[in-house]
Every structure is written in structure tokens, then in C-alpha cells.
């Protein structure tokens, strides 16, 4: 007796978000009585809305997207946090003269309006004293922001590191990432979300889904190569596109670098820190990411730890993972 359940990813399947597909291939959901359908998304904001509008049972959505929609009153909640840093930051070419925040002044910075980091650029600027009046902001489509940087149509871009770094790296373009996390401008990344009514009415399903997804994440952390092979089989176009496999590998590595977080190590996979969320809410409010008429948000509403904390990795396992992701931390300028 299996149940058909659907889940949406935040964006097109890629190395940073594909773990539900691995679990599906490995039978982690079937053994829990779930016949899972994994769909792609078109950005976290739309994905969260689609879940709220019952187009999907659950979603893998970046925290920023959920936050914006909850501020508009959509009754959603995160069941588990998978990525602990959205890797918001600036990306510049390796030989760019931009090294310190002040260097942005007089330059042109590209940004994707619908991308999660876009609203937080002002927060980063405020923290580091960049005079945004002296920076030209250039809105660009997600499909070509990296190329705009490569072709020097812009001097820098704002980016989600795990999306943009791999694109340029697989084209052989050397870049430098300037992470905002260092100044405290940091958001959680991928979370598993559901509607409040689903959580209240069907805790068993939520538990099964969280367990299946976290088991999948652990598998990809432990066996990154094997996991990628599963991905290439499921999405053959990744192998066919120029640099597709390198791209997937790097984005997986970058995403996994953000999974090595104290919350997961201390409390178990999927754990969300409520005080950290509170800080993120006030960051979002300061950044203007929440509109003036937004509902006051309570951190406990944003995430629940009801379903997490059961899967814990040993310190040996964490050590192995740290070794795996070390090169990616370097790419992120976080090493």
C-alpha cells in the first residue's frame, strides 16, 4: 500500500538540490510507503506558493522564498533544514580589481531580481559601508547573469554561490567569491516545507518524508560520486551539455560544504536553530525583503524540529565529509 506524494524542487534539477531523486532511486521512499514524484521549480518564491496552493504536497525551498511568502500570510512551515548557508555573495572574475567592499563603488553589479540573494545586497552594503549611490545595479535574467560577468558587461554579480560558481568554472573561467556570510548576512538554504494543515493532519507522512529525505542527504554526503552517477542516469541532458558533469559536481560540493553546520552536528540532521531564524527575520526586515505591510513573524512558526534530530552522524563520518568538501570551502573563500 503506497501513497502518491509530490514534491517540488526550488529550481531546475542540479547538483545542489537533487537529493530527493537519489532517495527515490534507492527506494528510501518506497520502503516508507510513498510513491514520490519530484518536480522542478521556477524559483523558491513560486515553489513555496505552489505548495501553499496545493499543487504539491511538499517542497524543497530556500528559506528566503518561504520567508517572503509567510510574511504574506501563507501557512507554511519548514520540517527540516538541509543547507545552512544560502551562499549569498558577490562573484567577480579572478583578476578583478574588486577586493574590498569599497571597491564596488563606481562599478556595475548584475543581479537577478527573482534570486534569493538579491534583496540582501543592500544589507551587505549597509554592513560594509558601500555607498550604493555609487554602484550601478543591473537587473539580469538568471539564464545569462554568469555570461554577463564573463563578457564583462558587468563588473560583479550578486549570486547564490552554488549556482553561479559552477557555471563559470565549468566554462574554464576563474572567479573569486566574496561571501556575505562573513559579515553576518546569512540565510538558511534548502529546507523541506509543507502546509501547516498537512503537518497537523498527517504527522506520519511528514515524518516519513523527512526521514526519507534526510537519509538521501546522508547518502549523497557519504557517496558523492555514486550519487552523481544516479543523477546523470536520471537526467541524461546533464551529461550531454558542455561542462554539465563538472557543473553538477561542483554545485554538489558547494552545497554540501554548507551542510557541515553545528546545528546538524550537535542536534542531528535537519535541525533548525530557532534563535538563528529570529536573527534572519530581523535581517530580512532590515534588508527590506519583507514589505511594510508584512505580518509579524514568529520564529517558531517558520520551522519545527518535531520531525528531526533522529539521524545523527558520527564524528568520523563528519570528518570524512569535511575532507570531501574542503576544496569547495576554498572556492567559497570560507576555508
Amino acid at each position: 500500500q503506497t501513497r502518491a506524494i509530490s514534491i517540488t524542487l526550488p529550481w531546475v534539477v542540479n547538483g545542489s538540490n537533487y537529493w530527493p531523486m537519489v532517495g527515490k532511486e534507492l527506494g528510501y521512499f518506497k520502503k516508507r510507503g510513498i510513491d514520490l514524484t519530484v518536480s522542478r521549480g521556477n524559483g523558491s518564491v513560486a515553489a513555496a506558493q505552489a505548495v501553499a496552493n496545493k499543487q504539491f504536497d511538499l517542497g524543497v525551498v530556500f528559506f528566503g522564498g518561504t520567508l517572503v511568502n509567510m510574511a504574506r500570510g501563507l501557512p507554511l512551515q519548514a520540517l527540516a533544514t538541509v543547507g545552512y548557508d544560502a551562499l549569498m555573495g558577490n562573484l567577480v572574475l579572478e583578476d578583478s580589481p574588486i577586493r574590498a567592499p569599497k571597491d564596488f563603488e563606481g562599478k556595475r553589479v548584475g543581479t537577478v531580481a527573482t534570486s534569493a540573494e538579491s534583496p540582501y545586497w543592500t544589507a551587505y552594503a549597509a554592513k560594509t559601508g558601500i555607498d550604493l549611490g555609487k554602484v550601478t545595479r543591473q537587473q539580469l535574467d538568471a539564464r545569462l547573469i554568469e555570461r554577463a560577468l564573463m563578457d564583462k558587461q558587468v563588473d560583479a554579480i550578486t549570486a547564490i554561490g552554488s549556482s553561479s560558481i559552477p557555471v563559470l568554472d565549468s566554462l574554464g573561467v576563474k572567479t573569486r567569491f566574496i561571501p556575505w556570510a562573513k559579515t553576518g548576512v546569512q540565510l538558511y538554504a534548502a529546507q523541506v516545507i509543507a502546509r501547516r494543515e498537512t503537518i497537523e493532519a498527517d504527522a506520519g507522512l511528514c515524518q516519513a518524508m523527512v526521514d526519507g529525505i534526510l537519509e538521501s542527504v546522508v547518502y549523497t554526503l557519504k557517496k558523492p560520486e555514486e550519487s552523481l552517477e544516479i543523477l546523470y542516469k536520471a537526467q541524461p541532458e546533464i551529461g550531454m551539455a558542455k561542462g554539465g558533469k563538472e557543473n553538477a559536481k561542483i554545485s554538489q560540493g558547494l552545497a554540501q560544504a554548507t551542510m557541515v553546520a553545528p546545528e546538524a552536528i550537535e542536534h542531528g540532521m535537519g535541525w533548525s536553530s530557532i534563535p538563528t531564524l529570529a536573527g534572519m527575520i530581523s535581517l530580512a526586515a532590515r534588508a527590506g525583503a519583507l514589505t511594510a505591510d508584512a505580518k509579524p513573524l514568529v520564529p517558531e512558526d517558520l520551522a519545527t524540529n518535531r520531525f528531526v534530530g533522529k539521524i545523527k552522524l558520527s564524528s568520523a563520518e563528519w570528518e570524512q565529509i569535511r575532507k570531501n568538501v574542503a576544496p569547495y570551502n576554498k572556492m567559497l573563500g570560507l576555508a
Partner: protein
Amino acid sequence: MSDGLTTRRIVLPLLFALATLALWEAVVRGFAIREVLLPAPSAIAQRLLETFPLLLQHAWPTVWESLAGFAIASLLGVALAALLSTSALMRDMLYPNVVLFQLIPKIALAPLFIVWLGIGFQSRLTFSVFISFFPVVIATLAGLDHVDKSLLRLCRALTATPWQVFTSVRLPHALPYVFSGMKIATTFAIIGVIVGEFITSQAGLGYLILFASAQADTALILAAILVLCVFGLAFYGLVAGLERWMQQKFGA
């Protein structure tokens, strides 16, 4: 048209539109649908009023780029059609390629326009011209071609030059066709600019829609689309008015 008819032709469609809006409002309220998923007409109207100065400010670049794209597309379209209709060689050589070109799903090429032409307004303008140009060519050519054979024979009998035939017979005859192509081109020119703005811009209603989607501000998205519709209607009305004027001045 009698007065009764006029009234009926204005009142009936308005009634239908109002009824649709009322139904929409009732559904949203009845099922308590959240504004971020589907705002009620009243919510859109309220958002429209609140953000009106912002909308106007963003409407301006969209409007002028659409008008410019449309004007260039119309001129180029009529000129290409004239070339194709006056030279048999050009026609045989180019027409099948024009038709083939028209079949390209140009929307898929939009991002490449920015790669090729840069992030300035010229890439949006070019894209707008690129997609609104073909309806004008095709329609104008149909008009230039479907000229009464007997009028062409008359011209031949009067030893008229090809240029005289074009200006005094083909073009006047093609005017209604040109306008039907131009009416389609108004919508296409706007779509071209909007898509261009989606891809890169710092202002414009397309940018605003994108920005509102990032903020999950569905009411603002729909308010911006409403402004676009009003502009589209005015634009269409302008072209229809020009047609009527030309019709009265030069028409049959």
C-alpha cells in the same frame, strides 16, 4: 448606428466585464483565497491606487520603447514588403526565408539578444522590432499582392512606371492590410519590450513584474499587467484611429 445600438454595444460588453469581475471577487471571498495566490479585483484596484506613482514611473520606459519598436518595425516591415512586391527576384529569393524566419520561436532567442547586443535599451528595442516586424511584412505583402488585376492593367495601359504603380495603386490598396498587420504589431512590440525587460533592465513594467514576483506581491503583478493592458488598448486605439483617419482621407 442608432443610439439604442450604440448604447447596447457599449453597455453590454461592460456589463459582461463587470459580471466577470464580480464573479472573480465572489470566488476569492467565498473560498477565502489568499491574496498572494489570487488577489480579488478589489485588492488589485487598491494596490493599483497605492502604487500608482511607481507604476507610472515604470510605465514610461516600457511605453516609449514599445512605441519606438513599433515604429521601426512598421517602417521596416512596409519597406521589406515593398521590396518583395516590386522585385520578382527578391521575392523568390527572400519570401520563403521570411516565412521560415517567422516560424522561429523567437522568445527562445531573447536571452541571446542581450549576449549579442549588450544590456542597454538597444537590445530590448531590437528584440521588440524583431518580433513585431513579421506581422507587418506578411500583412502588407498580402495587401500589395491582392491588388485588382484590372487596376494593374490600367497602369500598364497608361505607361505607368513601377514606382507610380506602387504609390498610386498598390500602396493605397494595401493600407487596410498594413493596418491589420500594425494592429497585431502593437501587442507584439509590447511583448517584445516586456520580455526584454524580464531579461535585463532597471526600470519598466516588465522589471516591476519581476520585482513583484520576487516579493510574492501578486496583486502588484496584476496591477502592472492591468496598466499594460490599458496602455495596449490606448496604443491599439491610436493605430485604429490613424487607420480611420487615413481611410477617410485616402480610403475607398
